Every structure is written in C-alpha cells, then in structure tokens.
C-alpha cells in the first residue's frame, strides 16, 4: 500500500517547547516555526526518474534518549574502530541519537580559535556566528518540504568553524551514531573554513538498529572562504529501515578549493543531493562519490556543480555498483553560468551492474551559458569486462574474488582519498559485506 505523505505530528507549541528545552536563541525558534508552516505547504523534492511517493520521511521518534560517553573505550567495537587512532582522536565529536556524547578538541586548535562542537552548544555559545551561516549562502530552507522539515525539527547537528589563516593538518572527525529503532535524525552540519584557512573534515553516519521505521534528514552546508581549502570526507551507513534525505551544499569563494570524498553506503532508500557552487573566481572543486545499491534498494543521486566565477574548475567522478534488484539513478549536472569564462567542468559517471535484476541509470547533463570554457562528460552503465575477469582468473583468482577485486578497484577512488585509516578500513569492510 502506498502511504500518503502523512501530516506532521508537530505543531508550533511543540516546537516552542522543544526549542526552549534546548535553550535556543529566539531567532532560531522563530525560524523553526516559520519552517514548520512551510513544511506543511511545500512539495516534496522531485528527483528525476525516482518515485519517492510512499517513502517515509515523517514517521519517526523526534526526541531520543542519548547517553554521554566518558571514555572512548566504552564504545562498541564498531564505533571504536572508526575513530582515528592517534592524532585525530584528539579532535572528535560523537553525536549519539542527536545529542553530544563525546567531544574533544586539541588545545592547539582551541587556542587558534577553532570551534568544533554540536549545533546545540554552538547556538548557545556562538549564536551570532551560527546565524551568519545557518541556511545562509549554501542551503535554502524553503527549497522543498524536506529542507523546511529539517529546519523545523532539527534535533542534531554540528558546527565547525576555522578562523582566517588557520591551517589544520590533522583531520577532524564526527561520528553520528543512531541506535534507536524509530530514530529520526534531523541533522544540520555546518563547516566553515574562513579565508586562507584549510581543514580536513570526516563524518560518519551510522545506525545500528534494524527493526523499525527510521528517518535521516540531513542538511550540510560547507563554506569555503577565499583561498581556503576544505577536504570533506563522508561515509554514510544507515541501515535498511532508514529512509534518508541527504542534501550537502557548498559555497566556494575566490581561489577556494573543495574536495569531496563520499562513500554513500546506506542500506535503505536514499535521496541524495550534493551541490557545489563555485562563486568566486578561480575556485576549484574535486568531487568523488561512490555508492552501492543492493537488495531492493531505491536510490537517487543528484550531483550538481555550478560555475559562477571565472577560471573555476570542477571535476566530478561518480561510481556506483548495482547488485540484486537495486535501482539507482545518477544525475550529474555541470552548469557553467554566463560570465564564468575560462572555466573547466568535467564529469564522469560509471555504473557497474553485477546482477541481471538491477537497474542503473546515469544521466550526464552539461548546461553551458558561456563560450570560452571547456567542459566534458562521460557516462556509462555496464557490466564487468569479461576480459578483465579472464585476466584476473588466469592468475588463479576465483570468479567471485575477481569480481570483488574489480568492485573494490572501482570504488577505490573514494576509499583511497579518505584521510583516516579507520574510516578507510570501515568503508572497505562495508563494501566487502555488500558484495559478498
């Protein structure tokens, strides 16, 4: 039975109570209320070629119990392994069921003015700074029902701010961990690298309950200031019963650089948008994302890069593996606006089909409004090359293992780019688990 999108279970008074229980500033409460009204009215997003009617975006528990963690050693093994062993462990946030459970930031970074905390705390302690970036230049609150819903009900989040001229070598890591069978993670991540700064940020989404009806509604805003660099790594790993809407958006200033490395490894239905806006002249983005669809999973990945500034460069690489009866749509849009002369936008999408019953669709779209540019696209949907299999098997490797090697190789562009060994290993393991 196709369920209608149900009415929301929340009203303005609930929102006010929730907001005040978290000690939020008035502007934020106000925004929630406006967003709630919008959420009632606005339509769902309309992803190309994927029917999301009937997907559960609204049935979930909004307030969950969460437990602080005193020592990382108390964490379950699968979380513990994710966490960077040495230097990175110094800069870690663990968000458990939406609330801050563990936090550490090295004295060095603190003294440089780096802010790395959950959204709730950031709103209390750095409200004005959050206001400057929250649904400001990167994401729009009123884009659709789900963005508005996110703003109305946000119950989890992260705020990372790197001041001007601060360059950070070590990665900062956030783990968002859900372990409630009906969890609703309404999450908002803000990463700001002010002018001339540089940062590496890695986030892991992890849910560990399998029986229930869960929702993840995630908005991420990344601001890359002039001459700043952000390396953004993410591994999403929600279980089968989590319906995910994840919308990652970014704004890149003049000569800024943004590198995305995303492992999109959810087991449930997923609607993903990633958007990079190269606003200043000379901005560069390198986006890599890999995913696996399996079981009966339905996924839609829209990856979009807009060039506004002159001399901007983008390179997009999207690789997806399709198993079982999974269906995924990959839409890549590179848009070069009028005036963005001497820009270069390249995109490659490859979908590897490992089963007869799977479906995959890669749609490359170039929208060019300027003459003096270079742009290119490549897209393919295909099976493993039998000659490649033959070559590997001719060295004694079984067909199954040869396929596995090829799949790992196919997804390697993202795995090899992740800066934390534990996260790399985990992604490799997830891939292994899905392809077995």
């Amino acid at each position, binding site marked *: 039975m196709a369920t209608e999108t149900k009415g929301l279970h929340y009203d303005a008074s609930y929102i006010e109570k929730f907001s005040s229980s978290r000690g939020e500033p008035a502007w934020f409460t106000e925004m929630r209320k406006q967003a709630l009204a919008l959420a009632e009215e606005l339509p769902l997003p309309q992803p190309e070629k994927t029917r999301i009617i009937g997907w559960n975006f609204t049935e979930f528990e909004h307030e969950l119990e969460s437990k602080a963690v005193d020592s990382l050693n108390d964490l379950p093994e699968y979380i513990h392994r994710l966490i960077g062993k040495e230097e990175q462990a110094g800069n870690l946030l663990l968000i458990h069921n939406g609330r801050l459970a563990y936090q550490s930031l090295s004295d060095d970074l603190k003294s440089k003015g780096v802010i790395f905390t959950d959204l709730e705390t950031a709103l209390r302690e750095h409200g004005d700074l959050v206001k400057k970036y929250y649904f400001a230049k990167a994401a729009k609150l009123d884009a659709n029902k789900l963005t508005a819903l996110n703003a109305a009900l946000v119950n989890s989040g992260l705020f990372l701010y790197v001041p001007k001229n601060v360059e950070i070598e070590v990665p900062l890591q956030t783990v968002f961990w859900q372990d409630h069978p009906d969890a609703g993670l309404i999450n908002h991540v803000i990463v700001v690298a002010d002018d001339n700064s540089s940062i590496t940020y890695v986030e892991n989404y992890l849910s560990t309950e399998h029986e229930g009806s869960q929702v993840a509604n995630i908005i991420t805003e990344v601001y890359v200031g002039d001459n700043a660099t952000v390396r953004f790594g993410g591994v999403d790993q929600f279980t089968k019963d989590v319906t995910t809407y994840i919308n990652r958006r970014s704004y890149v200033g003049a000569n800024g650089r943004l590198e995305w490395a995303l492992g999109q490894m959810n087991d449930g239905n997923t609607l993903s948008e990633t958007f990079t806006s190269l606003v200043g002249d000379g901005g560069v983005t390198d986006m890599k994302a890999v995913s696996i669809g399996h079981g009966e999973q339905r996924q839609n990945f829209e990856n979009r890069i807009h060039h506004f500034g002159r001399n901007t460069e983008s390179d997009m690489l999207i690789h997806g593996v399709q198993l079982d009866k999974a269906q995924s749509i990959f839409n890549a849009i590179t848009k070069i606006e009028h005036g963005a002369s001497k820009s270069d936008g390249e995109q490659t999408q490859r979908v590897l089909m490992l089963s007869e019953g799977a479906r995959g669709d890669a749609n490359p779209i170039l929208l060019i409004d300027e003459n003096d540019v270079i742009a290119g696209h490549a897209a393919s949907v295909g099976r493993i090359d039998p000659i490649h299999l033959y070559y590997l098997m001719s060295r004694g490797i079984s067909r199954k293992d040869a396929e596995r090697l090829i799949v790992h190789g196919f997804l*390697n562009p993202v795995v090899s780019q992740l800066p934390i060994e534990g996260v790399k290993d985990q992604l490799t393991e997830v891939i292994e688990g899905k392809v077995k």
Partner: protein
Amino acid sequence: MAQPTLKIEDLHVSIEGKEIVKGFSLEIKGGEIHAVMGPNGTGKSTLASALMGHPKYEITGGKVTFDGQDLLEMEVDERARAGLFLAMQYPSEISGVTNADFLRTAINARRGEGNEIPVMQFIKKLDEKMKLLDIDEEFANRYLNEGFSGGEKKRNEILQLMMLEPKIAILDEIDSGLDIDALKIVAKGVNAMRSPEFGCLIITHYQRLLNYIKPDKVHVMMQGRIVKSGGPELAERLEAEGYDGLKKELGIEDDEVVEQEA
C-alpha cells in the same frame, strides 16, 4: 615434486566461427623450454589463449591434458591453480586494484584458505623479485597495468610469473616492446625459473630473445599448426631467411595469410 607435463593433441580452435588453430600438437615437460615462431596471424596467441581458457575462443577438436588431467574441462582459475600461466601479449589494465593486492590475492588463491602467505613473507618475496626485474618499488602500489608502458606491462607479467611460480608457463611475445636492457632482465627472470619442475613455451618473432633464453626445441607455426620443429638452429635460419625459404621447402601456399591481410 613430479615433473609437470602439458600435452596438446590435435587441437582445433575457432573464433567467431572461423577456425584459426588447425591440428596443433605439442608436449611440454618440466625442464624444457620450447619456442614457437611463426608469421603474424598464424594463431599463436589463439593457441595460448585457448589453453588458458579465454572466453572468446572455442575449442572445436583435440585434447589437452595437464599432468594427466583434462585441461579443457577446467575453468580459467582452475587451470591457473593447477599450475598453468600465460604471460599475455596484451595484459588488461585493472583500475583501482594495486599490483600488490592483486598478487597477494592470486598467491593466496593458489595456497588456499587457511594457508595464506604471511604478509612479511609476501613483501620480502615481492621486493626480491622486483629487484631482480629492476622494477621500481612504487609499482607495487600502482594500479594493475594502468598507464604502464608496453615494456612495463611485459615486465609486470614476468613479475607475476616469478611470484606465482607456475609449473608450465606460456610467454606470448614477452619480448615485444622491450628495449635491449629490459630484454636481458626479462630473460634473467625466466632463466631464474628454470628447473625440472618448470616448463615453458615461448612465443616470439625474434631470435634475439632466444639468445638469452636458450630453447631446447624450436617450432614453426603456420596456418594454425606446427609445420616444422628443430633445435635452436631453426630460429637462426628463420632470422636469416625469413619464412619464405621454409614455405618453399614445405610447399606451403600463403594464400590464407594474404586473404587475412587483405
């Protein structure tokens, strides 16, 4: 270890309905090095690929046994695990899979589960063989053949040969694209494998390689079968005369070859 034997009897191979190998027979034993020479398009690579089990080639007749087992009944990977190796004329490029990971997987496939090669032992062996073949260390972490030059690919095939230690190896034009120094290095690698437990079939166009790897027997292949066998002196004669003299002597018309080239 017993002396391995690859026995090919009256083999016929077709590709896309066209018969290419037409009654090829040869027995290769451990300790022996055989060379097969022959004009372009006579079916040398077809023979090699069919023996390895390439999916595009169809065996239409004949018999091949490997240590008494029916080779043609075996899957490609089973043939390899039984000890057959083919250094390919055109090796594949596999993106994202490092040379080292690939080699370790291949070695472990042969050793079987529970008997995996200890990592340190693997690294030591790899280092040693790479040094012998004068391959830069970084190649261990490069993706399998991706972006390798022609000569680098050939060297990488020999590296695999040395790491996997097969019983019988077929080297398909391992010398093509190699500069003279690389040729010597590759020959050194193959010679290092020589033992009563290792037999080898070298497919080549040039006698030069055979100066460095002395064959016991040289066979000339034309139109899908062996037309003449002899010792190393046969290769020298071909080098001097080309194939025309031999064709005349044997009364072979080369209309087929002409037809293929047309």
